[in-house]
């Protein structure tokens, strides 16, 4: 059974990666999930958890997943924003777990924006 006692082992395993990355913060990719009441009721938590799972599984050490409040477009939640250094912000809407996996695989890993999940004019 997993316990606090194993935390030190994780630390030892991760420490070297972290040092490498910290010398290289300029290429950090940020993935942000809207999680106010509106986002949560639309399914933001499984989206957030899928993103975390995928980033951990693929060992993407330059990707940070975080939470934000209401992005002011409640109807389009769950909303995921992707910030890649030196590129324009990309906003995905009505994201679910499957879309979240595709965002990681296509956009974050391969650099191809998932255009089919972008906000389209008619939804606004």
């Amino acid at each position, binding site marked *: 059974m*997993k316990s606090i006692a194993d935390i030190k082992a*994780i*630390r030892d395993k991760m*420490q070297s990666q972290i040092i490498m990355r910290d010398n290289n913060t300029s290429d950090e990719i940020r993935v942000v999930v809207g999680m106010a009441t509106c986002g949560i009721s639309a399914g933001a938590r499984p989206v957030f958890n899928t993103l975390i799972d995928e980033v951990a599984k693929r060992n993407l050490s330059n990707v940070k997943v975080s939470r934000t409040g*209401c*992005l002011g477009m409640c109807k389009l939640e769950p909303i995921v924003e992707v910030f890649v250094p030196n590129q324009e912000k990309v906003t995905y809407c009505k994201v679910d777990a499957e879309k979240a996996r595709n965002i990681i695989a296509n956009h974050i890993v391969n650099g191809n924006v998932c255009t089919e999940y972008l906000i389209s004019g008619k939804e606004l």
Partner: protein
Amino acid sequence: MLRELSLNILDIVENSVKAGAKNIRIEVSAKGNDLKIVIADDGCGMDEEFLSRVTDPFTTTRTTRKVGMGLPLLKMEAEMSGGMFDITSAPGKGTTVKSTFKIDNIDRPPLGDISSTIISLIADLNEGQELVFKFEAFGNEFSLDTSQIKRELDPVRIDEPTVLVYLKDMIKENIITENGGVSL
């Protein structure tokens, strides 16, 4: 309605994070037919006047929309499932939100995926904010304290995805949410 009480928890604790709390405490406990959820923080708190209307959906300090739903929803869900809702707060001291639910009430939303909620919250903590999670049910107790975990991890951050996934599995393995046909 949110489909799981752990989604309400995720939502309510966001208020504590925004209130600049240093210490946030989440307690989930089941005794007999009562499920109790307590969320306490030492954040900015609210004055009496604001507090008296905070469970009205049109009370919010948010700027992106005019209604705040978090507290009214939790209150409604508690009262609809034979339980109670109570909030106390003092400016500069903090806020405590207590809600109880009758476990066998058919209108009670299930507790749901509490481990996902906790790691989503841990990922959202600001520098210097700590979270304690206590869970007690069916004679089993579990608690987690981010300040302890951060000490063990240093210099690795607690919001690293690998760490969060590990903590999620750890919580899942250590809590009992179902026993003898009773499911929280």
